[in-house]
């Protein structure tokens, strides 16, 4: 975004944000790109760092005694607009969440756009406005960026990679390797909403429902949780691969097993029904505004109380317990009364969900 504000106003016609489309010139590095950046991106994200117009942002470092946290995610969701959100807010929430689940205070975002030739500028403007709104609401500014354009048929409208920088107090150690046998496993709410909201839009599988993506920034909720229980051991957002895969990741990282209680796992009835219709398992469906927390068993109640007191954690639940298991198997007691494994996602459950 090195060209922010570098095209003199009045010297060229403003971008046609109604009928215009992205063309190769918008990515060539010249005046057309400078115009796109200044009239669209810089205007939407405006902040002192971005406005500087250099190839990067100069930022105050974290406070003394804090460490840096960096997380990056490409967003390639299809369709770009879906009930409950769009790729723009998703790309902001997704990266904020990756910082927040490390226990970090999200500070800044960098945004990199890969646009497909022919993409309507009106859609791009809508997406950028949604990103800007999400960024302002979360208090995490987009401080630098980049724009590339690829030929038609070499992209898919728009891909957005966001990279987040956060600050982590020394002493706070949250990570996937910290789960211990006996710990309680909690989730912050219903599972599978995001993935099924996307699925409902797929032409070949279309169904009608009121399912909306749960996309949300979780750092507020996490702040409240850490206030209540500073010793949370693991936090993670169960995105691609869903709860099942994320728990398997954690189990493998920590070298522990898990035992879940199916009856305790919150799933919205419509999500359950849509899964039934398509032969999917909600445990493998993506979420974008939920988190998994693992804490010592004694901390589970106060943590659950803190979660439920926050709007994003109203339906928080304790869903299982960490076990000692060198095989790192995640198992579940079914509501039916049996037991089975909940393995890693194998193959693809849902394409292009984030």
């Amino acid at each position, binding site marked *: 975004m090195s060209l922010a504000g570098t095209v003199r106003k009045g010297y060229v016609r403003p971008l046609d944000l109604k009928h215009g489309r992205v063309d190769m010139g918008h990515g060539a590095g010249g005046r057309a790109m400078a115009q796109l950046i200044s009239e669209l991106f810089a205007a939407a994200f405006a902040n002192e760092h971005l406005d500087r117009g250099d190839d990067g942002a100069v930022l105050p470092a974290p406070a003394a005694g804090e460490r840096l946290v960096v997380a990056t995610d490409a967003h390639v969701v299809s369709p770009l607009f879906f009930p409950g959100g769009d790729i723009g807010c998703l790309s902001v929430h997704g990266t904020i969440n990756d910082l927040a689940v490390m226990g970090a205070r999200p500070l800044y975002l960098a945004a990199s756009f890969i646009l497909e030739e022919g993409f309507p500028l009106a859609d791009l403007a809508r997406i950028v406005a949604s990103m800007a709104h999400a960024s302002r609401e979360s208090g995490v500014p987009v401080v630098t960026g980049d724009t590339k354009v690829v030929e038609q048929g070499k992209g898919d409208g728009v891909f957005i990679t966001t990279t987040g920088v956060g600050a982590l107090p020394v002493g706070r150690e949250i990570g996937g390797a910290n789960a211990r046998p006996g710990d309680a496993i909690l989730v912050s709410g219903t599972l599978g909403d995001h993935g099924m909201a996307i699925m409902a839009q797929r032409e070949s599988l279309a169904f009608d429902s009121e399912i909306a993506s749960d996309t949300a920034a979780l750092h507020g909720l996490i702040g409240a949780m850490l206030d209540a229980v500073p010793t949370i051991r693991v936090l993670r957002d169960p995105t691609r691969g869903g709860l099942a895969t994320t728990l398997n990741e954690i189990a493998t990282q920590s070298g522990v097993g898990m035992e879940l209680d199916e009856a305790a796992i919150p799933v919205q009835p419509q999500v359950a029904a849509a899964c039934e219709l398509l032969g999917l398992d909600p445990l493998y469906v993506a979420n974008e505004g939920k988190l998994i927390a693992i804490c010592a068993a004694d901390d589970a109640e106060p943590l659950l109380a803190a979660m439920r007191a926050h709007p994003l954690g109203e339906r928080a639940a304790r869903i299982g*317990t*960490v076990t000692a298991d060198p095989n790192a198997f995640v198992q579940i007691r079914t509501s*039916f009364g049996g037991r*089975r494994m909940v393995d890693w996602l194998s193959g693809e459950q849902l394409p292009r969900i984030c």
Partner: protein
Amino acid sequence: MKYVDEFRDGTLARKLADAIAREADPGRNYAFMEFCGGHTHAISRYGVTDLLPANVRMIHGPGCPVCVLPIGRIDMAIRLALSRPDVTICTYGDCLRVPASDGLSLLKAKARGADIRMVYSAADALALAQKLPEREVVFFAIGFETTTPPTALVLRQAQALGLANFSVLCNHVLTPSAILTILESPEVRELGTVPLDGFIGPAHVSTIIGSRPYAFFAEEYRKPVVIAGFEPLDVMQAIRMLIRQVNEGRAEVENEFTRAVSEEGNLKAQGLVSEVFELRRSFEWRGLREVPYSALRIRAPFAAWDAEAKFGLEFVSVPDNRACECGAILRGVKTPIDCKLFGTVCTPENPMGSCMVSSEGACAAHYNYGRFRDIPVVAGTAS
């Protein structure tokens, strides 16, 4: 979900489990084959095994259409898609990862540029052909008696529409012939290595064909058959009914799924199927080899929509991986852990055999849901 949730109820499950435990004779073993992958899935998914007494054993049968599809049939579709850039292959999602020759699968062929698309329904394939008149859309049809009528319908529609760019590569197979083959297999018939005390028959197949086609087995082979729904309580009730038949020395066809299955089945669907399809003299099944009169082909009046005729596709039989025990597993002779490749070389990501592909396959079901049973769990230190 009405008529779904009630049939998964844990309280009722415990009651049925008690009844089964009560009724099973502790002095003998019971071995029942659930023919259909749908039942295999339900058993694994809900942990039904944990509710059965130790002397009641379930054997996974060959009733997953993906598992029994021979390599050579997938090869036909892959060769067609890779050699003809104007061809789009549509199929149900389960077929995409079935391993074929040359380390390929439909999914890997797609990654090599073939136009392969997943559809939810045969009707979607037909609609795609109408939407893409410049492409040849081939519906790779697989399935037992349940998925056959929809295929028959789209073939009739294609004919009515004169839709020249649509065709079907037909792999529909028949449940009764497969069961017959198992009953005729030396292991069951002579050697007795597979003790088979009865069958659970698939309810959705019987919504179409009715319960009558099973009467022959019951009588001729003296094997009880219970047609059961796919919810776990249905399965447990069917097991209970089979135990009763065994205990009482009966060998009848009983119907647990009275809510949607009748003796005669869906006559409209049956009529449609016989209008469009006829028996193949023989068809290769994975694990069961050539099975006479076990599959359907498209009748002459629909030859213009028969992809085998239209594109001159040849079936070439391809042997399975030598170490793969799918064949024995599908016949109930072995279990997944008897296979050396299970869980190491062969996993759902790299399936060597078809039983590892569909979550309804015996190996995949055991890998995904039951693997922990092979290794004792160490108890949690705290909880």
